[in-house]
Structure formats: structure tokens, C-alpha cells
């Protein structure tokens, strides 16, 4: 028996198992144990915080209460199948469920070709599952149509980092470097609510000369902890970045030696940036000139400085260019690849980093390789034991994939693993229509999410405490998720589900179900690629408290800090990329005069499929709301708690008003975690970034209408313009 197996056995015998939180990319360390007075296989599970790496022993409310879902009556325990769309989902056997799915896939592929079937994955899946899902799609289903919800999350920052540095690892340095930095510029991130324990790093004690600078249209709990808060108009971060680089160049803050030695392309960027003088930028962004200058001064005169971006900067139809503009600023100041300084993006989902490396992305093969690269195809095909010619080419991005479902030429069967697009995709009402046009919708999930509710076949999958695997956290550290106990009843792991489907299709056995063996295979498939895990093993992760990729050989120490000597570009230099500001795709006008921006609250996670089923979290954040500035509220006759109709060109949402002066007067905010009348993503704009295919979640134009009792019945009516 291998060493890690023995260790695992030791763990399950003992009271506690060391693992990580199931939610965000911070992946706080946790210790799980069975409650003393309950059975070992089905009873309550206790959670305790555990220090790990640069993370202190800390948990937010989501982490503390994560185990509640293990024993929740709301979790799925058996496969469910519905005979027709008019009938209810009823319990079924695995054989029956697999048979239904396999029959539909076989029929659709015979009629429409391999592309008739599509797969949607998620950034919460372990590396093993993300890898296997890509392999399953390409070799079992042979479809190009696979993408994942990280497209709605990390794609803009990834695209910008790839073109600047030749490689995308969210944070190319450990968390400890952020804690030790003198100044941190955080653009569009509200860590106090999205990953609370990260605040320990972000607001670590700093000398008087430094501190935290936050860019956000809202004075969030994170912004309240900042030394300086810049509060731009939604959709204008790009102009702000150009203006800050302008100030840096004019005031002589550029690190000319670094620029000369380690970068290319400033000459192409300079003429554009010169047209963004701070007074012009003030008029575009609303950020006073004095604050722009102060932010640049703080950043440029710090000994160690960091520029970090979050979804606020990235979830736009110009998100890639916005991140690029902030990377350009960081490059001009000489930060990336300089010890203690740098640019990084704060990955959102638990395995948002690993999830984008191993091949569940439409254009990718394992190891962060491109699927249109013949050498990459040959390497991966050899590991998979197939002819490279059978591997499909790149497929459409997540939103485009969803939008093509059931249309002529589009997929007719969709398999969903670990995501809930009915709540999390933009223009969500349109997504529901697409799903309804499918021949067969299959959802593997822990609970009956809003997407599972629409499915023809629902497959119950194991939870985080019931499976082994690896996650790659926001700093690029590969860590272990460890199993406390097996899943209850008929519940299977996602790997077992994929293996079962492959067998039912008669196309197995290509799906390995033992996570450690999958990880080893993943290492071989990704070997030599940009995200090289070949030298990482479960044993090493256990022994070293995680290993940073790239780690090409067992003797390699891993790479906590990247780019210290060279960037991953052909000539080793980072690239300045010229970008121009452009307005939001949908700007405010007379009919829709208010900006809507969306985001998260502390006690909920993503589409809320998990957190909305945990009682303490429901109590803390029971439902949707609309944040409105008192001045805007007064203009509309809206009082605290009044239901407000928020109307965009795509739909209507209704939620109670929350009056606060922490938001701009011209902007309202809605969290996007909830389905039903208050579903924020009914309103959002599906306009896509030309490079990353990221939808414009963070800004669209709306109007507000107070809800009178007379129209209360028309909550779900859609405006004329949406037709």
C-alpha cells in the first residue's frame, strides 16, 4: 500500500481529518471530525479552523457552517429522472438514470454528430474532476462543446496575464508577500465579504507611509478598511488605470531601468496614456484628480507594492483590457517579478485556479495547453492513448455555448457538473429558455439547484468531506482535499458518475475513479505545459503543506514566486499592451438612467445553491435586496424596505430597498445569489469581452420603479424591449 493510502486510513480511524474549506479560493485550512455523540458515517460533523501555509487559523461564517449540508435533508441522495417535461422528477436507479442519459446521447449524436452533446463544468471541481471532465468530453463524448463557469469569473484576468506575462497564475507569489507589502492597490475586490480571512493579509499592519487603496463604486466593508478609497463610476476602471499610468509617467515615477531591462512595448502604450490626463479622467470616472495623484504617489513611493484585481474590474465586456491597463501600471512601476511586489488577481471559486488549467475550458488541454496547438494535441493524445486526430478542436465559450443550446446546429443534450447557470449566467431568463429547448438536461449536484430543478436527469454527487482530491488555491499552491467519510446511501463521486456514463455508452474504460491515480495521470498529461504538475504527488503535498506549480519533476522545489528571472514570454520580457478606454456597452440614458452593479454578500456563495440551504447563513442573509443611495431613493419616493422594481432591457427583478450612503448616487447594487423575483442576473448584460468572452456582469443600465400593490401580481412580467 502506498504511503498516502495508509495515511488516509490513519485519518479515517482517528477523530479528525485535515482538509480545506469547500468554498472560496482562499481555501482556509479546516479540521473535520465526527461529533462525539453521533454515528461515524451519517452524524453531525464538527469544523475547526486550522492554520495552513500563509493562512492563519480562521474561518468566516460560511466555513464554520459548511458541514451542515452533509446531513441536510435537502441534499440529494438518489438519482432522479422525469419521464417527460410535464411530469415530476422521481427517484430512479443509477442504471436507469445512466441508461436514459446514454440513450439520449447515442440518439442525438447519431443524428447531429458528436457536437450534439455539451458539457458545462465548474471552478469548484477538484483538479482531478476538472481534468477528467475535459478528457471525458474529448474522448468519450468527442465533443468540442465543453466550457465552465470560470468563464464568468477568471477569464479576463487570465487573458490579460497571459498576454502580459506569457502565463496566468492568479497570484504569482505567496499570500505572505501581500501581508509584507507596504502598499496594496485592490481594484474591484470586496474581500471582507468574499473571502473574509484574507483581510488578515490585506490589512496587515503597515507603516504610516503605506496602506491599502481600494477602487470600488461602493464603499464596501473592504473599502472602509482602506487608507484611500477611489469610488469610480461603474464601467470606468479602465480610464482610471490609464490616468494613473499617465500620472506615474508625468511625475517621473516610472522605473526606467526595470522597463528597459524586463519589458517591451511601453513606447506603444505611452501615446495613448498621454491622452488620459487626470482632469479628463476625473470627468470620465468621477474620481477627483487629487485622489488619483495620491493613489499613484502611495503606490510608486512604497518599497514593496502590489496591484491586485478582482471581479469588479474583470467582469466587463472590456475586462481583459482593464486588467491589462492595471498590469501596464504595475509594469511601469517595476512591480511584477520583483521580490515582494507584483501584480495578481484574486481568484474567486474554490478551485478557480486549477479549474482553468486542466482542460475543462473550451480552448484548452491539460497543463494549460492550447487545444489548437498540434504539439499539445500530440502529447495529450499519447497520454490518453488516442489518435490526436480524434480530439475535437476549440469550442464556444460558456455564454455562447449556453446561448446555442437547442437552437439549430446547437447541442441538444447538456451535462452540468458543479454549476448553476440559471442563477449565475447573465440574461438568466434567456438561459432558462435555452435549457427548456434541450432534448435532455443532466445535472450532477449535491442539492436540487435551480438548474437541477429544470433537469430531466439529476445525479446526486458527493460533497467535499466525502471525497479525496486536490485543489489549487489562489496563490497557485496545490493542496489536498481529504475525505472524512464515504458519501451516504447511493451518492457517488463525480469521477464515478463520469465512469458510469462512459460505461453505459460502451466507451469505457477511460475514466479512472481513484483520485490519486487521476492526479498522477493529470501530471503526465500536463507535463511540459505551462501549468506543469508532473513533479507533484499526494505524498509531497502532505509532507510540504502544499506545492506551488510549476513543478516539473519530483526533485523540483515548486515555484512560490514566479517571474523573478524572466517572464514566460518567448524573449523573457513582459509585454506592455496598448489599450483604450471605452464606455460601458450599455450606458445610462433617459429611459434607463441608473447604473446597476452586482456582487456578493458575506453569508452567501456563488449561486447560493449550497449556502441558501444552511440555516445560519439564511438567517444572516435571508434574501436579495437593492442597495440605493438615499438621494436616489428620495427622488423615486422609495423608503427603506420598500419593494423596488429594477428594470433593464432584459428583464425585471424585484427586491426590497436598502438605503445606504456607501453607494454612488447614480448606481444601485444587487447581490446575485438568489433565484426568483429578486434574481439579479435577469437584468445583467450578456455583452462579451472580445478576448476573454467574459459577460458584462458589473454594469448595465436600469430604471427603478417603486412597487405599488396593484402591480404586485405582475412581478415576473418582462418589459417590451426584451422581446
Amino acid at each position: 500500500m502506498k504511503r498516502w493510502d495508509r495515511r488516509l486510513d490513519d485519518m479515517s480511524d482517528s477523530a479528525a481529518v485535515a482538509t480545506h474549506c469547500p468554498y472560496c479560493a482562499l481555501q482556509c485550512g479546516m479540521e473535520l471530525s465526527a461529533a462525539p455523540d453521533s454515528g461515524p458515517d451519517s452524524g453531525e460533523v464538527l469544523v475547526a479552523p486550522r492554520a495552513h501555509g500563509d493562512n492563519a487559523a480562521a474561518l468566516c461564517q460560511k466555513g464554520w457552517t459548511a458541514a451542515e449540508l452533509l446531513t441536510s435533508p435537502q441534499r440529494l441522495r438518489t438519482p432522479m429522472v422525469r419521464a417527460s417535461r410535464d411530469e415530476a422528477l422521481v427517484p430512479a436507479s443509477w442504471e436507469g438514470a445512466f441508461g436514459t442519459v446514454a440513450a439520449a446521447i447515442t440518439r442525438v449524436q447519431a443524428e447531429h454528430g458528436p457536437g450534439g452533446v455539451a458539457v458545462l463544468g465548474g471552478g469548484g471541481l477538484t483538479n482531478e474532476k476538472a481534468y477528467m471532465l475535459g478528457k471525458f468530453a474529448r474522448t468519450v463524448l468527442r465533443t468540442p462543446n465543453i466550457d465552465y463557469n470560470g468563464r464568468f469569473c477568471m477569464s479576463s484576468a487570465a487573458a490579460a496575464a497571459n498576454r502580459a506575462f506569457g502565463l496566468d497564475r492568479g497570484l504569482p507569489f505567496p499570500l505572505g508577500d501581500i501581508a509584507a507589502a507596504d502598499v496594496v492597490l485592490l481594484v474591484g475586490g470586496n474581500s471582507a465579504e468574499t473571502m473574509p480571512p484574507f483581510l488578515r493579509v490585506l490589512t496587515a499592519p503597515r507603516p504610516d507611509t503605506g496602506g491599502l487603496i481600494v477602487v470600488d463604486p461602493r464603499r464596501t466593508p473592504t473599502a472602509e478598511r482602506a487608507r484611500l478609497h477611489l469610488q469610480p463610476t461603474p464601467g470606468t476602471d479602465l480610464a482610471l488605470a490609464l490616468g494613473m499610468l499617465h500620472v506615474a509617467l508625468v511625475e517621473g515615477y516610472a522605473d526606467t531601468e526595470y522597463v528597459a531591462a524586463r519589458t517591451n512595448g511601453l513606447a506603444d502604450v505611452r501615446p495613448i496614456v498621454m491622452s488620459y490626463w487626470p482632469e479628463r479622467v476625473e470627468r470620465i470616472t468621477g474620481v477627483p484628480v487629487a485622489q488619483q495623484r495620491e493613489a499613484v504617489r502611495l503606490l510608486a513611493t512604497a518599497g514593496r507594492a502590489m496591484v491586485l484585481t478582482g471581479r469588479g474590474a474583470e467582469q466587463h465586456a472590456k475586462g481583459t483590457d482593464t486588467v491589462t491597463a492595471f498590469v501596464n501600471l504595475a509594469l511601469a512601476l517595476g512591480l511584477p517579478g520583483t521580490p515582494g511586489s507584483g501584480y495578481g488577481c484574486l481568484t474567486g471559486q474554490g478551485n478557480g485556479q486549477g479549474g482553468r488549467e486542466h482542460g475543462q475550458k473550451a480552448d484548452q488541454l491539460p497543463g494549460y495547453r492550447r487545444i489548437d496547438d498540434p504539439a499539445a494535441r500530440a502529447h495529450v493524445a499519447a497520454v490518453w492513448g488516442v489518435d490526436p486526430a480524434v480530439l475535437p478542436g476549440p469550442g464556444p465559450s460558456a455564454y455562447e455555448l449556453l446561448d446555442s443550446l437547442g437552437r439549430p446546429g446547437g447541442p441538444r443534450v447538456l451535462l452540468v457538473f458543479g454549476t448553476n447557470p440559471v442563477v449565475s449566467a447573465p440574461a438568466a431568463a434567456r438561459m432558462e429558455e435555452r435549457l427548456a429547448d434541450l432534448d435532455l438536461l443532466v445535472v450532477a449536484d449535491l442539492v436540487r439547484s435551480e438548474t437541477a430543478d429544470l433537469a430531466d436527469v439529476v445525479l446526486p454527487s458527493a460533497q467535499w468531506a466525502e471525497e479525496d482530491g486536490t485543489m489549487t488555491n489562489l496563490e497557485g499552491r496545490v493542496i489536498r482535499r481529504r475525505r472524512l467519510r464515504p458519501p451516504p446511501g447511493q451518492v457517488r463521486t463525480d469521477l464515478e458518475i463520469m465512469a458510469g456514463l462512459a460505461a453505459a455508452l460502451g466507451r469505457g474504460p477511460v475514466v479512472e475513479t481513484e483520485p490519486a491515480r487521476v492526479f498522477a495521470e493529470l501530471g503526465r498529461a500536463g507535463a511540459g505545459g505551462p501549468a506543469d504538475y508532473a513533479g507533484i504527488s499526494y505524498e509531497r503535498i502532505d509532507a510540504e503543506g502544499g506545492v506551488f506549480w510549476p513543478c516539473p519533476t519530483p526533485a523540483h522545489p515548486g515555484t512560490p514566486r514566479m517571474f523573478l528571472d524572466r517572464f514566460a514570454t518567448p524573449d523573457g520580457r513582459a509585454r506592455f499592451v496598448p489599450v483604450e478606454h471605452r464606455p460601458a456597452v450599455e450606458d445610462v440614458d433617459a429611459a434607463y438612467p441608473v447604473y446597476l452593479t452586482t456582487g456578493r454578500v458575506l453569508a452567501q456563495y456563488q449561486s447560493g445553491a449550497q449556502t441558501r440551504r444552511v440555516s445560519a447563513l439564511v438567517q444572516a442573509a435571508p434574501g436579495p435586496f437593492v442597495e440605493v443611495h438615499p438621494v436616489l431613493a428620495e427622488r423615486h419616493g422609495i423608503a427603506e424596505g420598500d419593494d423596488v422594481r429594477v428594470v433593464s432591457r432584459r428583464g425585471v427583478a424585484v427586491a426590497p430597498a436598502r438605503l445606504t450612503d456607501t453607494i454612488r448616487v447614480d448606481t444601485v447594487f444587487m447581490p446575485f445569489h438568489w433565484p426568483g423575483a429578486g434574481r439579479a442576473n435577469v437584468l445583467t448584460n450578456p455583452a462579451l469581452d472580445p478576448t476573454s468572452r467574459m459577460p458584462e456582469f458589473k454594469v448595465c443600465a436600469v430604471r427603478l420603479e417603486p412597487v405599488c400593490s396593484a402591480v404586485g401580481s405582475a412581478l415576473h412580467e418582462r418589459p417590451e424591449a426584451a422581446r
Partner: protein
Amino acid sequence: MSVVVVGNGMAGTRFAADLRTLDPHRPLVVFGAEPGRAYNRVLLPELLAGRLTPDDLALPEPSGALDLRAGVTVTAIDRDRRVVCADDGSRTRYDALVLATGSRPVVPAVKGLCRDDGSLVEGAAVFRTLADCRRILAAARGARDVVVLGGGLLGLEAARGLARRGLRARVVHARGHLMERQLDLDASRILTSTLAGLGVEVLVEAATVAVVGDEDGRVRGVVLEDGTRLPADLLVVACGVRADIGLAVRAGLRTGRGIVVDDLMRTSDPAIHALGDCAEHRGQVYGLVAPAWEQARVAAGVVAGHGGTYAGSRLVTRLKAPGVDLATMGDPHVRDEATEVVTFADPARLVYQKVLIRERRLVGAIMLGDNPSVGTVTQLFDRDAPVPVDARSLLFARPGTGPAANGSPGVPAAGDTLCRCNGVTAGGIATAWLAGARTTEEVARVTRASTGCGGCRDTIEGFVAALSAGPAHTPAPEEVVA
């Protein structure tokens, strides 16, 4: 269909770039009277201040092939044949002609300022082009005293830039207060103090009657109306500009103070457009870059056949001088019964604010000094959006200055959330304390307070200490929320 642009300045290049975006393949000829590539005139004061070099000012070239005739002046337009004639002897046909000829500096009639041929004497320069800047900088080398004639936007920016180089700068302004179109007297006084702190002395109601030169004809000083003599080894003339309409006048186009255009930016000849400093739209000649760029976008749309109309620009003026924060917009001089005027002046802190409101819309504003709300006010004005009922929030809002005052609010009420990450209220902690938890660690073990971001640790510690000090101040315990 070929397009010819006369003028390679801020407006002309912007038009060319916008047209290229809309119509990438249209043949495009651009004439620029100045030599070299297009540059950013807005940044010239930074050149005077020594913070930028001429190379830094280059504007981005429009994408695609461009027939740029730099250093070539268009001398005539043959409208019948649709041909422009230039001083290099060339004749160029156009289907659409765009005039972006800009403006020329006004040189006042001051004794001793000009030579017989009309050129300025040695040591004196206007402040308009890159070449002017080079002249000023050449003269500034070794100079000690600079006098700037004219206390408008450009004069103040020039004086500030040169003062930054270490010159003793004096602004001589004939009127009663600075920037008289954009400021009132009170604002002018505070601005004068601000400038004094930056090494720029301002003299108002000071008409210059003569320039004094040495035997070589070099500037040595100026004489004011009251007989005061100011030393100067550099004289910068910044007495305003006039639209450059000579070409249009000769071509018989309709002109007023500028070349008259309609809402499609067309002149009286529909094949000819005009935009930027040389254009007059609805009686208005702007002389600022933002309106010029808005006009360029409309003109490009019209020429490309995409349509679009120009309805005038909102006038926002921002002094671009480091250390001086001044924004003015609209008309700050409105005085009628329908207009509500709110002012705040704090001369000691060099702050002056004035907003003028009519029918809940801003019609004008002056924001001088430390004004964190300047961005909000500018955007409200730009969008013609309704202002808050209480206009004071426009003056005193302080967005963006953190951290918020979260000092010690005294004893919290039972329902107050002390630990946000774990939703723990003061009542929850009191309950834990009553049950025997006496330290922050013990409270954390029971309630999870402070185990998230850790930011509330001091608050919890203080609250636990207060509980231990005496129960008189403790709130009623309640259910532990977490």
C-alpha cells in the same frame, strides 16, 4: 470618396482616428501646418514644468495608411472643383473636407512688444505650439524673472510650470480678477493666495503699457499703467486666442467669431465640415479639447455616413497645474430669482466652493482647493442630473477618504453586530460572557467572534473587558446568532 483634413492638432487627429474606426479603408489626407507628428497640446504646461519631453507629447497615429502632409500649409480651397491648394504647390481633391485649423494667440498692442515686421521681440513668446514652448524654454535658460501677460487658464498654467522650474513668476492681468469668465471675485482672491504659495505672484487690474528692452532688443521688463516697472528676462503672452478662420473666409464660407457650423458640423458648404477651436456652433466657440473631441466624433459619423448630431457641449474647465485644484463649469455668474446659489469660502484653507442650481439642475459651479466632491459635481453637471435636495452634500461629501470613523462608539446595543464575518452581536457575546467565557479567546470559542477577518478583535476585547468591569453597562443577552 476621399476625405481631406486641414489641421493636424488635437481636433484634426481625433477626427482622423474616429473616421478610421468607423471606416477603416477610406482614403484620408491630413495637412498639418506645424512640422512633425501630431502632439498633445493639453500637456504643453508639463513641458514647461520640465516633467515631460517633446517626445512624450506624441498623439497616437490613426491606424492604417495615412497620407500625412506635415509642415504643409493649405492656402486656398477651390470649392467648385473640390480641391485644396497648399504652399508646397500641391492640389488635392476631396469629396469631404474637414477644417480643423484651430486658433491663433492674440497679441495685444503693447508698445515695444513687437518688432516692425510684427514678430515678437527677443525674450517674448506666445504660448500655443510646441515651437512656442521651445522658444520659451530656450529663453528660460538662465532667466530669473518671468512675466506672463494674461491671467486666463493658459497664462496661469504657463506661470505655474515655469515657477516649477525655479523662475520667479508674475502674472499680470488687466482685469479685476483672474479667469473672469470662469471665476468670481472671491474665488479669484483665494486662487491668488494658492498661486502665491506655489511661487506665482498675481497682479490684477494691471494693464501693461510697454515692454522694456535692452540695447540688443531683448526683453528686460514691462511697465504697467500705474508706472510700476517689473523686471523680466522672459515674457510670455497668454492673452487669449482667436479662431483661425482666414482660409474659410477666403473660401467664402460663412463665418462669425469662428467658422459657422450646423448640428452635423457642416459649414455653409455641405461638403466642408469644421470642428474644434475654429468652429462656431450655435454662437459658441469653445476653445477646449473636450468639445473638440465630441465634435470630431459627430463629424466622423456624418462623413462616414453613420449619422449623428451635435447639440453643443457642457462646459467644464479644469486648471491643469499641479498644486492647484480648480474646476469650473457652466456659468458661475448667473444671478436671477430662479437660481439658488450656495457658496462656501474658507480662505485660510484655500477652499472655495460655489454651486448654482436651477430647477434642481446645476447651471454652474466653482470648486477650488481641497474638494473631494469635485468628481461628483462634475458628473452631475455633465449629465444634467438632478441634484440632492440638500445642496450641502455637494460641498461637504467626502467620498473616498478612509478609513471611516469607527472609533469607540461606547457600549454597543444588544443587536449591534460586532463580528461581521460570523454575524455575532453584542448580545451574543454578553450571553457567552454570562455563561462563563471571560477572555476574547473563550468568547471566540463559543461564538466564533473574531475568527474571520480578525478586524473586530480589538472591539471584542474592549467589550469583554467592559463586561468584566461591571454589569451595569451590559446589554441584555440574546440568542447567539452564529
